[in-house]
Every structure is written in C-alpha cells, then in structure tokens.
C-alpha cells in the first residue's frame, strides 16, 4: 500500500508507468503474433514515437513550432550510415567518398551513437543564436534551417550519394530495440517536463516576460529543449536508416515534417501522453487508409491510381482537431494510473 501511495505522489513515475504498460503490451503482442507486416508497421510507429516525443520536448514545452528537427533526422540517418556501412558496400554506393572515411566500419550501436552525437552537436552549435527569436521569425528560421540542411544533403554527393538513393544498409532496427529506445525516450521526456528546466521552459511559453522577470534564463532552457529534440530526431534517423535500408534525401523533408507534426497536434502538444496518443492514433489512421487506398487501386474503383488520399484525410483531421479541440485530444494533460480508488480511503485530509 505504501508503494502505491508513493506511486500516486510521484507524477513522473505514475505517468511513465501508465504510458509504458499499453506500449509494452502492444509490442509484446505484435512480437508474439509473428506477423511480419504488423511488425514493420509497429516498428515504424515506435521510430515515429521517438520523433514525436522529441518534438513534444521542444514544441510542447516552449510553444514554438519547429520544422528543423526533421533535418536533423536526416543528419542522424546519413551520419550513422557513414560509420556503419560495410567498406565493400561503400565502394559501390558512395563512390566519391573521402579517403579517410572509406575504411571506417563500426558496429551498429557505435555508429548510431556517433550519428546521434553529430546531429546533436550540429544542433547545439547553430541553434543558440536562434533561440531569442519567436513567433513568425522563429518559424521562418526553423524552416530555413530545414531547407539549408536538405539542400546540403542533396548536393553533398561525396557523403550522401546526392539526390539518389543510398542503398546497401544492413537491417539492424527491429521491433524490440526500436520499442525499447522509444520507451526510454518517453520516460525521459516525462521526467524532463516535470524537471526544473522543463517547468522553466513551460513558464516561458505561458508568459515570456513574467518568466524572465522571475529569473528564468529563457535562451538557455529553450536551447536545451531544442538540442534535446534534435538529439531525439538524429537518433530516430539512425534507427530509421537501419530499418528501411535504402533511402533518399526527400524522406527527410516536408512530408515527414507534416506526419510528425500531425501526430503531435492531434494528440496534443502540451503533454507526453498527447505525443503517445497522437502517434498511435495517426499510425492506425494512416495504415487503415493506406490499406483502403491499396484496396481501391486493386479494384480499379476510380479507373486509376488513388494517390494522396491518406495525407489528404490526415490534413483534414488535423484541421478539424485544431478547430474543434485546439489542445489536441489530451488537452495538455498526462495520463495517470487509476489509483484513486485504492488510495483515496487512506489519503489524509
């Protein structure tokens, strides 16, 4: 009983457990089912969950919309692959690679850490001066950062194979490791939201002037949030690269920004629970619609290929949520374990 009381008092622990239990059950059931298609879908969902959680850390707590993180997902993907790719494959897929990188061959986890590190360090260096901007200027700069990163990825053929597909990456990301990483990231995000820096960041979101007046170093906490988000994104990029095994720069651009943003907005950016709910729901919606699209194409219902229906309806649902339920489905609240009935009787007034 004491342990339960403790659990109810600790918001971080409580919410973490409330979020983890259904995710563990889901991952376990899918793993047990042995269904390969289902496993792929849920693995992608967990990779998305890392991206959405990262976006929640910055956007949810600071109130600033960001586009840049998907650029850092791209940096993470390419940087990881640069270190994990087999030298023989490199000779084929990256023919103009710099000499000193040609023999480099690290195990997956080492490469993933380095890739994440590169993304995080780049983010840390370029983002500090940007943190004093807000509103339109902040949005346009984060958009500009995305465009710049995309342009560099597309044209730096030596390390990225240019706009063409980079292929030959080993499949290293599976359901078990993707879900594990996503859950660790989730718990950290829940903790961060309640931590001192997280609360300061939320204070600066609710009232910039008042927060600074009581001594919040807004630039520093925003910067911390931004760098964390980019770290999450770079990590997710590395995982994604080793899941999909061949990819091109276009996969780290506006379409991906839209999906990740839709997940967070539909779930509700104000809480980590919102990130989880949004990711799960949008994944369900997308996969359902995509299956429907495939079925329609098979049946030749409209005489041609049905393309874009999924994103079209997703965009409409996102607009509907923004109009009807602006805080997202979770309205900024965190999920809690339903312990009230157990402990209520013993709670002192």
């Amino acid at each position, binding site marked *: 009983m004491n342990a339960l009381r403790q659990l109810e008092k600790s918001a971080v622990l409580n919410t973490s457990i409330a979020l983890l239990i259904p995710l563990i059950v889901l991952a376990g059931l899918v793993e047990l089912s042995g269904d390969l298609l289902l496993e792929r879908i849920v693995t992608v969902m967990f990779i998305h969950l890392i991206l959405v959680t990262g976006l929640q850390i910055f956007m949810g707590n600071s109130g600033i*919309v960001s586009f840049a993180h998907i650029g850092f997902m791209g940096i993470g993907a390419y940087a990881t692959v640069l270190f994990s790719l087999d030298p023989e494959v490199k000779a084929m897929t990256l023919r103009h690679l710099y000499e000193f990188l040609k023999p480099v061959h690290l195990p997956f986890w080492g490469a993933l850490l380095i890739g994440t590190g590169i993304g995080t360090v780049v983010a840390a260096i370029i983002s500090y001066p940007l943190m004093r901007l807000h509103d339109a200027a902040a949005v346009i700069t984060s958009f500009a950062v995305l465009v710049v990163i995309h342009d560099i990825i597309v044209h730096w053929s030596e390390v990225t194979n240019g706009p063409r597909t980079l292929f030959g990456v080993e499949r290293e990301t599976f359901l078990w490791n993707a879900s594990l990483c996503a859950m660790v990231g989730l718990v950290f995000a829940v903790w961060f939201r309640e931590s001192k820096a997280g609360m300061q960041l939320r204070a600066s979101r609710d009232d910039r002037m008042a927060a600074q007046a009581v001594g919040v170093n807004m630039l520093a906490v925003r910067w911390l949030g931004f760098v964390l988000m980019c770290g999450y994104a770079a990590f997710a990029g590395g995982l994604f690269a080793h899941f999909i095994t061949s990819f091109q720069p276009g996969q780290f651009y506006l379409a991906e920004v839209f999906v990740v943003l839709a997940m967070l907005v539909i779930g509700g950016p104000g809480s980590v629970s919102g990130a989880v709910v949004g990711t799960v729901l949008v994944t369900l919606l997308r996969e359902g619609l995509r299956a429907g699209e495939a079925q329609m194409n098979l049946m030749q219902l409209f005489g041609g290929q049905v393309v874009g229906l999924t994103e079209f309806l997703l*965009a409409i649902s996102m607009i509907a949520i923004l109009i009807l339920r602006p805080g997202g489905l979770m309205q900024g609240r965190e999920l809690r374990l339903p312990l009230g009935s157990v402990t209520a009787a013993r709670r002192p007034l």
Partner: protein
Amino acid sequence: MGNVGAILQFTIDVLSLGSLYALMALGLVIIYGILRLVNFAYGELIMVAGYTLFLLHPTPLPWLIMGLLAVSVSVATAYLTERIAFRPVREQSLTAMLITSFAVSTMLQNAAMLFVSPRAKVVPLPELFTVQLTIAERIVPLRNLIAIGVSVALLALFALLLKRTILGIALRAAADRFTMTRMLGIPANLIIGTAFAISGLLAGTVALFWFGRTGSVTPEIGLWPLLVAFVSTVIGGMRSLLGAVVGGYVLALIQMAFSNFLPPALLEFRVAFVFTLVIFILLFRPEGLIRER
C-alpha cells in the same frame, strides 16, 4: 555593343523575375501584416491556377479567358481557405493558425494528387509567350517584358487602392493596429477576407507567368514560390508592403548574380546560401532593409 547587350539582358532578367517575386512577397505580407500569419498554403494558390489552366486546356476558350478563370480560382481558393480553415482558429493562437496553414497546404497538394494526377501536367500557354525579341543582339523573350509591364501595372493599381480608397485605408489601418481598427467599426471579417482575396489575385497573376517559365504543373510546384515569398519578405522586413516589393527585386538580383558569377561547385549550394542569409537577416536585422517610421 556586346557589353551593352549583356547588361540589358541581365537587367531585363532581374526585372522580370523580380517583378514576379515582388508580387509573391506582397501577397504573403498583406496577410502577415494583418493576421501575423505566415501562410504556408500560399504556394498552393499558384498550384490551383496551374491545374485550372490544365483542366481548361481541352476547351475552345481563348487563352485570356482561361487565364482570367485561373486567377479567379486562386482568389476563390484563398478566400475559401480563410473562410473554412483560418477563421475558426483565428482567435486561438498564432501557432494554431500557422499549423493550420501548413495542414491546408498539405491538403491542397494531396487533393491535386488525388483528384488530378501526381505527375506533371502540361499547362497551355498563349502564342505571345513563345515570341523572342532581339534587342542589342541579345535574345529576350517577350513574356519577360509582359511580366514586367503587368506587374508594374498591378503594383500601381494596388498602391492606388491602398492610398485612395476607403477599403485600402482600412486595410492599412488593420495592418498597423488590428484591434484598434476593429474598435473603430471596421468589420474584421471583411478586412481579412479582402486581404486573402488580394493575396489570391497576386498569386494567380504570378502563376500565369510562372507557368510561362516552367510550362507544366505538379502538386509540389507551390514550394519554390513559397520559399521565394518567404525570403523576399524577410529581406524587406516582414511588416512593410514596400519592403516586400523591394525584397522581391533584391532576391532576383541576388539569384541572377549567383547564377552568373558563382563557380558551378558553389552554385549547387545556392539555396543553402540564400537561406543562411535569411537566418542572418532575421537574427541581426529583423526589420529588414526598409525601416518604416
């Protein structure tokens, strides 16, 4: 003589491209000035004009009518997006409006994919657009001169509207102090609706010449004009209408100078250069090149 010709050609290139950029920037800034909304769905106004032209291609209508219809579709789209998507979220927050505009942009792009085609479609162009003139031994496409003429006329008309009509004065007042303007009895919906319609008119007009350059329309065609409008407004200062126009011409000058003088190895990264410039302007001179007041 060769030198004069080169300078003349460069000037016409800059002016014709700059005129289109200026109109684009103006359409973006007129909405930003009133609503503080960075409208991500702005590029799609160009796209819908392109698809209208494509769909009208088989009809026997003269091109001028097709062009007018295309511009009207841009205006209608701009107005309808405001009516259906932006108006309900207007009272919430800037962030909500911004995300809505991004969603509207994605929705329109995918609607084009879904209902027309994901592949590039040929846009009909008037005979006039293919005429090449020879001035000072240089070949100059006539459509560039038309673009300059039409843009300057439109800019002049727009300036007249803002300066001389009650609607124009109300628009300027709203861009300056929106709340105060509403208190003085100017209906907000009228002003915002008009602003969106004007932005559709500008985008639709640009579209006609834009497709004169590209010749075909794709669902993603709006991205580049959108980026152009962003950069131009940032160069000119986000709040100034005059600044937006100047920003458009400056961007065209930068772009033309880059493609003429930058070595090919660096030319590849010109987009990265331009957007790095944008970041620096926003950081160090957020009011842009033109300081008002």
